[in-house]
Protein backbone atom coordinates (compact mmCIF):
# COMPACT_ATOMS: atom_id res chain seq x y z
CA UNK A 1 0.00 0.00 0.00
CA UNK A 2 1.22 3.42 -0.87
CA UNK A 3 1.88 5.66 2.08
CA UNK A 4 1.58 9.22 1.02
CA UNK A 5 2.45 11.72 3.74
CA UNK A 6 -0.50 13.96 4.43
CA UNK A 7 -0.30 17.72 4.76
CA UNK A 8 -0.64 18.77 8.37
CA UNK A 9 -4.26 20.12 8.24
CA UNK A 10 -5.74 16.88 6.94
CA UNK A 11 -3.77 14.73 9.35
CA UNK A 12 -5.05 16.68 12.26
CA UNK A 13 -8.54 16.70 10.80
CA UNK A 14 -8.43 12.88 10.66
CA UNK A 15 -7.65 12.73 14.34
CA UNK A 16 -10.19 15.36 15.02
CA UNK A 17 -12.98 13.62 13.15
CA UNK A 18 -12.38 10.47 15.12
CA UNK A 19 -12.72 12.36 18.39
CA UNK A 20 -15.92 14.37 17.98
CA UNK A 21 -19.64 13.58 17.71
CA UNK A 22 -21.62 13.59 14.42
CA UNK A 23 -18.54 12.08 12.85
CA UNK A 24 -20.11 11.15 9.51
CA UNK A 25 -21.65 14.54 9.06
CA UNK A 26 -18.31 16.19 9.64
CA UNK A 27 -16.62 13.75 7.30
CA UNK A 28 -19.14 14.81 4.72
CA UNK A 29 -18.19 18.44 5.26
CA UNK A 30 -14.54 17.54 4.81
CA UNK A 31 -15.11 15.46 1.73
CA UNK A 32 -17.20 18.21 0.17
CA UNK A 33 -14.45 20.73 0.64
CA UNK A 34 -11.39 18.60 0.10
CA UNK A 35 -11.92 15.58 -2.14
CA UNK A 36 -8.69 14.04 -0.91
CA UNK A 37 -9.93 14.16 2.68
CA UNK A 38 -12.38 11.47 1.60
CA UNK A 39 -9.59 9.01 2.26
CA UNK A 40 -9.35 10.22 5.82
CA UNK A 41 -12.85 9.50 7.07
CA UNK A 42 -12.79 6.91 9.87
CA UNK A 43 -14.69 4.02 8.27
CA UNK A 44 -12.25 3.89 5.39
CA UNK A 45 -9.43 3.33 7.82
CA UNK A 46 -5.86 3.88 6.73
CA UNK A 47 -6.50 4.48 3.05
CA UNK A 48 -3.68 6.65 1.79
CA UNK A 49 -3.92 4.83 -1.57
CA UNK A 50 -7.39 6.29 -2.13
CA UNK A 51 -6.07 9.77 -1.56
CA UNK A 52 -3.29 9.08 -4.06
CA UNK A 53 -5.75 7.81 -6.66
CA UNK A 54 -7.97 10.87 -6.21
CA UNK A 55 -4.97 13.17 -6.56
CA UNK A 56 -3.73 11.43 -9.71
CA UNK A 57 -7.22 11.42 -11.23
CA UNK A 58 -7.68 15.12 -10.53
CA UNK A 59 -4.25 15.84 -11.95
CA UNK A 60 -4.97 13.88 -15.13
CA UNK A 61 -8.40 15.48 -15.57
CA UNK A 62 -6.96 18.97 -15.34
CA UNK A 63 -3.97 18.18 -17.57
CA UNK A 64 -5.95 16.41 -20.29
CA UNK A 65 -9.28 18.24 -20.10
CA UNK A 66 -8.28 21.61 -18.59
CA UNK A 67 -8.66 23.52 -21.84
CA UNK A 68 -11.92 21.76 -22.67
CA UNK A 69 -13.31 22.77 -19.28
CA UNK A 70 -12.21 26.33 -19.99
CA UNK A 71 -13.79 26.25 -23.48
CA UNK A 72 -16.98 24.88 -21.95
CA UNK A 73 -17.10 27.69 -19.42
CA UNK A 74 -16.37 30.33 -22.11
CA UNK A 75 -19.01 28.88 -24.42
CA UNK A 76 -21.54 29.08 -21.61
CA UNK A 77 -20.73 32.78 -21.23
CA UNK A 78 -21.06 33.42 -24.98
CA UNK A 79 -24.28 31.38 -25.04
CA UNK A 80 -25.82 33.64 -22.39
CA UNK A 81 -24.77 36.68 -24.44
CA UNK A 82 -26.32 35.20 -27.58
CA UNK A 83 -29.61 34.64 -25.76
CA UNK A 84 -29.57 38.28 -24.66
CA UNK A 85 -28.64 39.47 -28.16
CA UNK A 86 -31.42 37.40 -29.67
CA UNK A 87 -33.92 38.92 -27.25
CA UNK A 88 -32.68 42.43 -28.12
CA UNK A 89 -32.79 41.72 -31.85
CA UNK A 90 -36.30 40.24 -31.70
CA UNK A 91 -37.62 43.04 -29.54
CA UNK A 92 -36.21 45.76 -31.81
CA UNK A 93 -37.58 43.92 -34.87
CA UNK A 94 -41.03 43.78 -33.27
CA UNK A 95 -40.77 47.48 -32.35
CA UNK A 96 -39.79 48.34 -35.92
CA UNK A 97 -42.68 46.41 -37.45
CA UNK A 98 -45.10 47.95 -34.94
CA UNK A 99 -43.83 51.48 -35.57
CA UNK A 100 -43.96 51.12 -39.35
CA UNK A 101 -47.50 49.75 -39.19
CA UNK A 102 -48.58 52.53 -36.85
CA UNK A 103 -46.82 55.56 -38.33
CA UNK A 104 -46.25 54.57 -41.94
CA UNK A 105 -49.77 53.34 -42.69
CA UNK A 106 -48.57 50.66 -45.14
CA UNK A 107 -51.05 49.28 -47.66
CA UNK A 108 -49.90 45.71 -47.09
CA UNK A 109 -48.16 43.83 -44.27
CA UNK A 110 -44.54 45.10 -44.22
CA UNK A 111 -43.14 42.17 -42.18
CA UNK A 112 -41.70 40.28 -45.16
CA UNK A 113 -40.07 43.38 -46.58
CA UNK A 114 -38.64 44.36 -43.18
CA UNK A 115 -37.15 40.89 -42.72
CA UNK A 116 -35.59 41.26 -46.14
CA UNK A 117 -34.10 44.66 -45.23
CA UNK A 118 -32.74 43.22 -41.96
CA UNK A 119 -30.42 41.00 -43.99
CA UNK A 120 -29.09 43.99 -45.95
CA UNK A 121 -25.42 44.87 -45.53
CA UNK A 122 -22.77 47.08 -47.10
CA UNK A 123 -19.63 45.89 -48.85
CA UNK A 124 -16.76 48.28 -48.14
CA UNK A 125 -14.49 49.35 -51.02
CA UNK A 126 -11.32 47.39 -51.74
CA UNK A 127 -8.36 48.53 -49.63
CA UNK A 128 -5.55 47.02 -51.70
CA UNK A 129 -5.02 50.37 -53.36
CA UNK A 130 -6.01 53.02 -50.77
CA UNK A 131 -5.76 55.87 -53.28
CA UNK A 132 -9.14 57.61 -53.43
CA UNK A 133 -10.76 55.15 -51.03
CA UNK A 134 -12.62 57.90 -49.13
CA UNK A 135 -14.46 59.03 -52.27
CA UNK A 136 -15.35 55.43 -53.03
CA UNK A 137 -16.54 54.87 -49.46
CA UNK A 138 -18.60 58.06 -49.59
CA UNK A 139 -20.27 56.91 -52.78
CA UNK A 140 -21.09 53.50 -51.32
CA UNK A 141 -22.50 55.06 -48.14
CA UNK A 142 -24.59 57.52 -50.18
CA UNK A 143 -26.02 54.65 -52.21
CA UNK A 144 -26.73 52.70 -49.03
CA UNK A 145 -28.48 55.65 -47.35
CA UNK A 146 -30.58 56.30 -50.43
CA UNK A 147 -31.48 52.63 -50.71
CA UNK A 148 -32.61 52.54 -47.07
CA UNK A 149 -34.66 55.68 -47.44
CA UNK A 150 -36.28 54.46 -50.68
CA UNK A 151 -37.15 51.11 -49.11
CA UNK A 152 -38.69 52.76 -46.06
CA UNK A 153 -40.55 55.27 -48.24
CA UNK A 154 -42.00 52.40 -50.26
CA UNK A 155 -43.38 50.58 -47.21
CA UNK A 156 -44.51 53.75 -45.39
CA UNK A 157 -46.47 55.82 -47.88
CA UNK A 158 -48.23 57.71 -45.09
CA UNK A 159 -45.09 59.03 -43.35
CA UNK A 160 -43.92 62.63 -43.55
CA UNK A 161 -40.22 63.51 -43.92
CA UNK A 162 -39.45 63.62 -40.16
CA UNK A 163 -41.20 60.31 -39.48
CA UNK A 164 -39.53 58.79 -42.54
CA UNK A 165 -36.10 59.78 -41.19
CA UNK A 166 -36.94 58.37 -37.75
CA UNK A 167 -38.14 55.08 -39.24
CA UNK A 168 -35.05 54.84 -41.45
CA UNK A 169 -32.80 55.26 -38.40
CA UNK A 170 -34.89 52.73 -36.50
CA UNK A 171 -34.50 50.21 -39.30
CA UNK A 172 -30.74 50.84 -39.39
CA UNK A 173 -30.60 50.10 -35.64
CA UNK A 174 -32.50 46.84 -36.25
CA UNK A 175 -30.16 45.90 -39.11
CA UNK A 176 -27.03 46.55 -37.05
CA UNK A 177 -28.38 44.50 -34.10
CA UNK A 178 -29.23 41.64 -36.44
CA UNK A 179 -25.70 41.77 -37.85
CA UNK A 180 -24.06 41.77 -34.40
CA UNK A 181 -26.23 38.83 -33.31
CA UNK A 182 -25.26 36.82 -36.38
CA UNK A 183 -21.56 37.57 -35.97
CA UNK A 184 -21.49 36.48 -32.32
CA UNK A 185 -23.53 33.38 -33.12
CA UNK A 186 -21.12 32.55 -35.94
CA UNK A 187 -18.10 32.55 -33.64
CA UNK A 188 -20.01 30.63 -30.98
CA UNK A 189 -21.07 27.86 -33.35
CA UNK A 190 -17.66 27.73 -35.00
CA UNK A 191 -15.98 27.47 -31.60
CA UNK A 192 -18.39 24.77 -30.53
CA UNK A 193 -17.92 22.79 -33.73
CA UNK A 194 -14.14 22.99 -33.80
CA UNK A 195 -13.62 23.02 -30.00
CA UNK A 196 -10.96 25.58 -30.77
CA UNK A 197 -9.88 27.56 -27.76
CA UNK A 198 -8.73 30.50 -29.88
CA UNK A 199 -11.92 30.79 -31.92
CA UNK A 200 -13.98 31.01 -28.72
CA UNK A 201 -11.42 33.29 -27.09
CA UNK A 202 -11.72 35.85 -29.90
CA UNK A 203 -15.40 36.45 -29.26
CA UNK A 204 -15.22 36.00 -25.49
CA UNK A 205 -12.57 38.74 -25.17
CA UNK A 206 -14.63 41.41 -26.92
CA UNK A 207 -17.98 40.26 -25.58
CA UNK A 208 -18.44 42.95 -22.87
CA UNK A 209 -17.82 45.69 -25.44
CA UNK A 210 -20.14 44.06 -27.98
CA UNK A 211 -22.90 43.72 -25.40
CA UNK A 212 -22.59 47.34 -24.32
CA UNK A 213 -22.86 48.49 -27.92
CA UNK A 214 -25.83 46.22 -28.57
CA UNK A 215 -27.68 47.44 -25.46
CA UNK A 216 -27.05 51.04 -26.53
CA UNK A 217 -28.37 50.46 -30.07
CA UNK A 218 -31.47 48.71 -28.69
CA UNK A 219 -32.10 51.64 -26.36
CA UNK A 220 -31.87 54.07 -29.26
CA UNK A 221 -34.63 52.20 -31.11
CA UNK A 222 -37.41 53.42 -28.83
CA UNK A 223 -36.07 56.97 -28.89
CA UNK A 224 -36.24 56.91 -32.71
CA UNK A 225 -39.85 55.74 -32.62
CA UNK A 226 -40.90 58.49 -30.23
CA UNK A 227 -38.61 61.12 -31.73
CA UNK A 228 -36.82 61.86 -28.46
CA UNK A 229 -33.49 63.73 -28.53
CA UNK A 230 -30.52 61.39 -28.03
CA UNK A 231 -27.34 62.13 -26.10
CA UNK A 232 -25.53 62.03 -29.44
CA UNK A 233 -27.57 65.04 -30.53
CA UNK A 234 -25.95 67.41 -28.05
CA UNK A 235 -23.79 68.96 -30.80
CA UNK A 236 -26.92 69.66 -32.85
CA UNK A 237 -28.58 71.07 -29.71
CA UNK A 238 -25.72 73.53 -29.16
CA UNK A 239 -26.07 74.70 -32.77
CA UNK A 240 -29.87 74.91 -32.33
CA UNK A 241 -29.34 77.28 -29.36
CA UNK A 242 -27.19 79.52 -31.57
CA UNK A 243 -29.67 79.32 -34.48
CA UNK A 244 -32.79 80.03 -32.42
CA UNK A 245 -35.09 82.76 -33.75
CA UNK A 246 -33.02 83.07 -36.94
CA UNK A 247 -34.02 82.04 -40.45
CA UNK A 248 -32.40 78.81 -41.51
CA UNK A 249 -32.03 77.47 -45.03
CA UNK A 250 -30.84 74.14 -46.38
CA UNK A 251 -27.26 74.42 -47.57
CA UNK A 252 -26.31 70.76 -48.14
CA UNK A 253 -28.00 67.38 -47.90
CA UNK A 254 -30.08 67.47 -44.67
CA UNK A 255 -28.02 70.40 -43.32
CA UNK A 256 -29.53 73.76 -42.41
CA UNK A 257 -27.60 76.96 -41.77
CA UNK A 258 -28.15 80.42 -40.32
CA UNK A 259 -26.00 83.46 -40.91
CA UNK A 260 -25.79 85.94 -38.07
CA UNK A 261 -23.50 88.35 -36.30
CA UNK A 262 -21.79 87.86 -33.00
CA UNK A 263 -19.94 90.88 -31.56
CA UNK A 264 -18.84 92.05 -34.99
CA UNK A 265 -18.00 88.57 -36.31
CA UNK A 266 -19.87 86.88 -39.15
CA UNK A 267 -21.19 83.60 -37.80
CA UNK A 268 -22.29 80.63 -39.95
CA UNK A 269 -24.04 78.10 -37.73
CA UNK A 270 -25.12 74.76 -39.14
CA UNK A 271 -26.66 71.50 -38.00
CA UNK A 272 -28.64 68.58 -39.39
CA UNK A 273 -32.22 69.35 -40.38
CA UNK A 274 -34.62 68.46 -37.58
CA UNK A 275 -36.71 67.42 -35.86
CA UNK A 276 -36.52 64.04 -37.66
CA UNK A 277 -33.52 61.76 -37.19
CA UNK A 278 -30.72 62.97 -39.47
CA UNK A 279 -27.02 63.68 -39.38
CA UNK A 280 -26.68 65.13 -42.88
CA UNK A 281 -23.39 65.83 -44.60
CA UNK A 282 -21.76 68.64 -42.60
CA UNK A 283 -18.55 68.39 -44.66
CA UNK A 284 -20.38 69.46 -47.81
CA UNK A 285 -21.92 72.42 -45.99
CA UNK A 286 -18.62 73.52 -44.40
CA UNK A 287 -16.71 73.15 -47.66
CA UNK A 288 -19.35 75.11 -49.52
CA UNK A 289 -19.17 78.03 -47.06
CA UNK A 290 -15.37 77.98 -47.13
CA UNK A 291 -15.34 77.97 -50.95
CA UNK A 292 -18.03 80.67 -51.20
CA UNK A 293 -15.97 82.90 -48.91
CA UNK A 294 -12.80 82.32 -50.90
CA UNK A 295 -11.20 80.50 -48.01
CA UNK A 296 -11.47 83.59 -45.81
CA UNK A 297 -12.76 81.75 -42.77
CA UNK A 298 -10.90 82.49 -39.54
CA UNK A 299 -12.05 79.46 -37.60
CA UNK A 300 -14.05 76.26 -37.99
CA UNK A 301 -15.61 75.03 -34.75
CA UNK A 302 -17.14 71.56 -34.65
CA UNK A 303 -19.30 70.71 -31.64
CA UNK A 304 -19.96 67.07 -30.92
CA UNK A 305 -20.60 64.48 -28.24
CA UNK A 306 -17.56 62.48 -27.26
CA UNK A 307 -17.49 59.09 -25.60
CA UNK A 308 -15.99 59.75 -22.19
CA UNK A 309 -13.31 57.70 -20.55
CA UNK A 310 -14.26 55.80 -17.42
CA UNK A 311 -14.04 58.21 -14.49
CA UNK A 312 -14.88 61.32 -16.53
CA UNK A 313 -18.04 63.20 -15.64
CA UNK A 314 -21.06 63.12 -17.94
CA UNK A 315 -21.67 66.57 -19.38
CA UNK A 316 -18.14 67.84 -18.85
CA UNK A 317 -16.83 69.95 -21.71
CA UNK A 318 -13.43 69.77 -23.35
CA UNK A 319 -11.77 71.63 -26.20
CA UNK A 320 -9.57 70.07 -28.83
CA UNK A 321 -7.70 70.96 -31.97
CA UNK A 322 -8.97 69.16 -35.04
CA UNK A 323 -12.27 68.08 -36.49
CA UNK A 324 -14.71 66.28 -34.20
CA UNK A 325 -16.95 64.07 -36.31
CA UNK A 326 -17.58 60.38 -35.78
CA UNK A 327 -18.87 57.84 -38.26
CA UNK A 328 -16.86 56.31 -41.07
CA UNK A 329 -14.51 59.29 -41.37
CA UNK A 330 -15.67 60.59 -44.75
CA UNK A 331 -16.89 63.96 -43.40
CA UNK A 332 -13.83 64.31 -41.18
CA UNK A 333 -11.53 63.64 -44.13
CA UNK A 334 -13.25 66.18 -46.38
CA UNK A 335 -13.18 68.98 -43.79
CA UNK A 336 -9.55 68.26 -42.89
CA UNK A 337 -8.64 68.32 -46.56
CA UNK A 338 -10.23 71.73 -47.16
CA UNK A 339 -8.99 73.21 -43.88
CA UNK A 340 -5.41 72.09 -44.44
CA UNK A 341 -5.41 73.24 -48.08
CA UNK A 342 -6.66 76.72 -47.15
CA UNK A 343 -4.89 76.86 -43.76
CA UNK A 344 -8.11 77.38 -41.81
CA UNK A 345 -7.73 76.62 -38.07
CA UNK A 346 -10.03 73.87 -36.81
CA UNK A 347 -11.08 73.50 -33.19
CA UNK A 348 -13.62 71.27 -31.49
CA UNK A 349 -15.85 71.62 -28.45
CA UNK A 350 -16.72 68.23 -27.02
CA UNK A 351 -19.36 67.20 -24.52
CA UNK A 352 -18.51 64.00 -22.71
CA UNK A 353 -20.93 61.15 -22.27
CA UNK A 354 -20.87 57.38 -22.20
CA UNK A 355 -21.63 55.07 -25.10
CA UNK A 356 -25.02 54.20 -23.63
CA UNK A 357 -25.81 57.85 -22.87
CA UNK A 358 -25.05 58.76 -26.50
CA UNK A 359 -27.73 56.40 -27.78
CA UNK A 360 -30.40 56.85 -25.12
CA UNK A 361 -32.66 59.88 -24.58
CA UNK A 362 -30.59 62.89 -23.58
CA UNK A 363 -29.81 63.10 -19.89
CA UNK A 364 -30.46 66.28 -17.96
CA UNK A 365 -26.72 66.79 -17.33
CA UNK A 366 -26.04 66.57 -21.06
CA UNK A 367 -28.88 68.96 -21.91
CA UNK A 368 -27.57 71.49 -19.40
CA UNK A 369 -24.04 71.02 -20.73
CA UNK A 370 -25.29 72.29 -24.12
CA UNK A 371 -26.01 75.71 -22.57
CA UNK A 372 -22.51 75.79 -21.04
CA UNK A 373 -21.04 74.75 -24.40
CA UNK A 374 -22.75 77.74 -26.07
CA UNK A 375 -21.01 80.07 -23.61
CA UNK A 376 -17.74 78.19 -24.16
CA UNK A 377 -18.04 78.77 -27.92
CA UNK A 378 -18.73 82.45 -27.41
CA UNK A 379 -15.63 82.70 -25.22
CA UNK A 380 -13.63 80.85 -27.85
CA UNK A 381 -14.77 83.27 -30.54
CA UNK A 382 -13.81 86.27 -28.40
CA UNK A 383 -10.35 84.82 -27.69
CA UNK A 384 -9.47 83.29 -31.04
CA UNK A 385 -11.07 85.65 -33.58
CA UNK A 386 -11.28 89.39 -34.19
CA UNK A 387 -14.05 91.74 -35.23
CA UNK A 388 -14.82 91.31 -38.92
CA UNK A 389 -13.75 87.64 -39.01
CA UNK A 390 -15.96 84.90 -40.41
CA UNK A 391 -16.47 81.77 -38.34
CA UNK A 392 -18.21 78.45 -38.98
CA UNK A 393 -19.83 76.61 -36.06
CA UNK A 394 -21.07 73.14 -36.95
CA UNK A 395 -23.22 71.16 -34.53
CA UNK A 396 -22.53 67.51 -35.27
CA UNK A 397 -24.76 64.58 -34.36
CA UNK A 398 -28.21 63.14 -34.79
CA UNK A 399 -30.81 65.89 -34.54
CA UNK A 400 -33.77 63.65 -33.68
CA UNK A 401 -36.15 65.58 -31.43
CA UNK A 402 -34.33 68.89 -31.95
CA UNK A 403 -35.65 71.62 -34.27
Amino acid at each position, binding site marked *: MLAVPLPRPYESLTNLIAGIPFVYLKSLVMSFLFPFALAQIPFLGDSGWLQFVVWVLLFLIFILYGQRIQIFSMLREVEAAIRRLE*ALKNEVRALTIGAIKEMGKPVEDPTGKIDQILEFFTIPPVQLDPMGIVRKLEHILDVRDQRFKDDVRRITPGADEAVLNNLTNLLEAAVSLNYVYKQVRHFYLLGKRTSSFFVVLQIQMILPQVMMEAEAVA*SAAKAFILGQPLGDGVGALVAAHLMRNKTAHEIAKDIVMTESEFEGRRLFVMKAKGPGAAVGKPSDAINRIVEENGGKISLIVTVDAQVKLEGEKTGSIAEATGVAIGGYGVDKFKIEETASRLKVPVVAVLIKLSNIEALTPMKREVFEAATSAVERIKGLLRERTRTGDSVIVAGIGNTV*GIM
Partner: protein
Amino acid sequence: MAEPRKVSPMMLVFYIVGALIVLLIAIISIYAAYAVFRSSQASIEDAGYFLLIATVMLILSAYLMGAMRRRTTIVSVVIPQDVLSIEECAKCSFKNVRAFMRGDYVFKTLGKCPRCSEPMSIAAIYREERGK
Protein backbone atom coordinates in the same frame (compact mmCIF):
# COMPACT_ATOMS: atom_id res chain seq x y z
CA MET B 1 -40.37 46.87 -22.60
CA ALA B 2 -39.89 47.95 -19.03
CA GLU B 3 -40.61 44.61 -17.44
CA PRO B 4 -37.90 43.15 -15.20
CA ARG B 5 -36.04 40.26 -16.78
CA LYS B 6 -37.56 36.93 -15.86
CA VAL B 7 -35.21 34.39 -14.29
CA SER B 8 -35.92 30.74 -15.03
CA PRO B 9 -37.41 28.89 -12.01
CA MET B 10 -34.66 26.24 -12.34
CA MET B 11 -32.00 28.90 -11.93
CA LEU B 12 -33.77 30.40 -8.93
CA VAL B 13 -34.06 26.97 -7.25
CA PHE B 14 -30.36 26.36 -7.98
CA TYR B 15 -29.36 29.60 -6.22
CA ILE B 16 -31.67 29.10 -3.25
CA VAL B 17 -30.71 25.44 -2.70
CA GLY B 18 -27.02 26.23 -3.23
CA ALA B 19 -27.10 29.10 -0.73
CA LEU B 20 -28.96 26.97 1.84
CA ILE B 21 -26.55 24.02 1.51
CA VAL B 22 -23.55 26.25 1.91
CA LEU B 23 -25.17 27.96 4.89
CA LEU B 24 -25.86 24.57 6.47
CA ILE B 25 -22.23 23.57 6.03
CA ALA B 26 -21.17 26.83 7.68
CA ILE B 27 -23.43 26.16 10.68
CA ILE B 28 -22.15 22.59 11.00
CA SER B 29 -18.57 23.83 10.83
CA ILE B 30 -19.21 26.39 13.55
CA TYR B 31 -20.73 23.69 15.71
CA ALA B 32 -17.78 21.38 14.97
CA ALA B 33 -15.35 24.12 15.98
CA TYR B 34 -17.26 24.59 19.22
CA ALA B 35 -17.36 20.81 19.86
CA VAL B 36 -13.63 20.45 19.25
CA PHE B 37 -12.89 23.32 21.54
CA ARG B 38 -14.97 21.78 24.32
CA SER B 39 -13.81 18.17 23.83
CA SER B 40 -11.25 16.40 25.99
CA GLN B 41 -8.77 16.43 23.08
CA ALA B 42 -9.25 20.16 22.63
CA SER B 43 -7.11 21.58 19.87
CA ILE B 44 -7.20 25.30 19.11
CA GLU B 45 -5.60 24.62 15.73
CA ASP B 46 -8.28 22.13 14.64
CA ALA B 47 -11.07 24.36 15.88
CA GLY B 48 -9.46 27.11 13.83
CA TYR B 49 -9.68 25.02 10.67
CA PHE B 50 -13.38 24.50 11.21
CA LEU B 51 -13.88 28.20 11.81
CA LEU B 52 -11.98 28.92 8.60
CA ILE B 53 -14.27 26.57 6.69
CA ALA B 54 -17.30 28.20 8.32
CA THR B 55 -16.08 31.67 7.27
CA VAL B 56 -15.49 30.58 3.67
CA MET B 57 -18.93 28.97 3.54
CA LEU B 58 -20.63 32.06 4.98
CA ILE B 59 -18.94 34.26 2.35
CA LEU B 60 -19.94 31.82 -0.41
CA SER B 61 -23.51 31.76 0.85
CA ALA B 62 -23.67 35.57 0.90
CA TYR B 63 -22.21 35.65 -2.63
CA LEU B 64 -24.84 33.21 -3.92
CA MET B 65 -27.64 35.23 -2.37
CA GLY B 66 -26.20 38.42 -3.85
CA ALA B 67 -25.87 36.80 -7.29
CA MET B 68 -29.49 35.68 -7.10
CA ARG B 69 -30.59 39.22 -6.27
CA ARG B 70 -28.53 40.71 -9.12
CA ARG B 71 -30.01 38.23 -11.59
CA THR B 72 -33.55 39.08 -10.66
CA THR B 73 -33.05 42.85 -10.83
CA ILE B 74 -31.43 43.12 -14.28
CA VAL B 75 -33.85 45.00 -16.51
CA SER B 76 -34.99 44.12 -19.97
CA VAL B 77 -34.07 45.45 -23.41
CA VAL B 78 -34.71 49.12 -22.99
CA ILE B 79 -34.03 50.78 -19.66
CA PRO B 80 -37.22 52.55 -18.51
CA GLN B 81 -36.84 56.24 -19.22
CA ASP B 82 -38.67 59.14 -17.64
CA VAL B 83 -38.39 61.68 -20.43
CA LEU B 84 -39.73 65.12 -19.62
CA SER B 85 -40.72 68.04 -21.83
CA ILE B 86 -40.29 71.48 -20.31
CA GLU B 87 -42.63 74.10 -21.74
CA GLU B 88 -41.56 77.67 -21.17
CA CYS B 89 -42.86 81.13 -21.90
CA ALA B 90 -40.07 83.36 -23.21
CA LYS B 91 -41.78 86.49 -21.88
CA CYS B 92 -42.87 85.69 -18.33
CA SER B 93 -40.71 82.55 -17.78
CA PHE B 94 -43.76 80.49 -16.86
CA LYS B 95 -42.73 76.83 -16.83
CA ASN B 96 -44.71 73.66 -17.22
CA VAL B 97 -42.98 70.30 -16.75
CA ARG B 98 -44.78 67.29 -18.20
CA ALA B 99 -44.06 63.83 -19.57
CA PHE B 100 -42.74 63.68 -23.12
CA MET B 101 -45.38 63.12 -25.79
CA ARG B 102 -44.86 61.90 -29.32
CA GLY B 103 -44.45 64.92 -31.59
CA ASP B 104 -42.56 67.00 -29.03
CA TYR B 105 -39.21 68.43 -30.05
CA VAL B 106 -36.82 71.02 -28.63
CA PHE B 107 -37.85 74.62 -29.54
CA LYS B 108 -41.28 73.53 -30.82
CA THR B 109 -43.74 76.42 -30.68
CA LEU B 110 -46.83 75.64 -28.61
CA GLY B 111 -50.06 77.37 -27.66
CA LYS B 112 -50.48 80.50 -25.59
CA CYS B 113 -49.05 80.98 -22.12
CA PRO B 114 -51.83 80.66 -19.50
CA ARG B 115 -50.31 83.59 -17.60
CA CYS B 116 -49.46 86.20 -20.25
CA SER B 117 -51.00 84.75 -23.47
CA GLU B 118 -47.66 84.89 -25.31
CA PRO B 119 -46.72 81.81 -27.37
CA MET B 120 -44.90 79.14 -25.38
CA SER B 121 -42.30 76.69 -26.65
CA ILE B 122 -40.58 73.51 -25.55
CA ALA B 123 -37.37 74.75 -23.98
CA ALA B 124 -35.96 71.38 -23.05
CA ILE B 125 -36.45 67.65 -23.38
CA TYR B 126 -34.38 65.40 -21.19
CA ARG B 127 -34.57 62.26 -19.17
CA GLU B 128 -34.37 62.08 -15.44
CA GLU B 129 -32.59 59.10 -13.91
CA ARG B 130 -35.02 56.95 -11.95
CA GLY B 131 -34.63 57.22 -8.20
CA LYS B 132 -33.06 60.71 -8.38
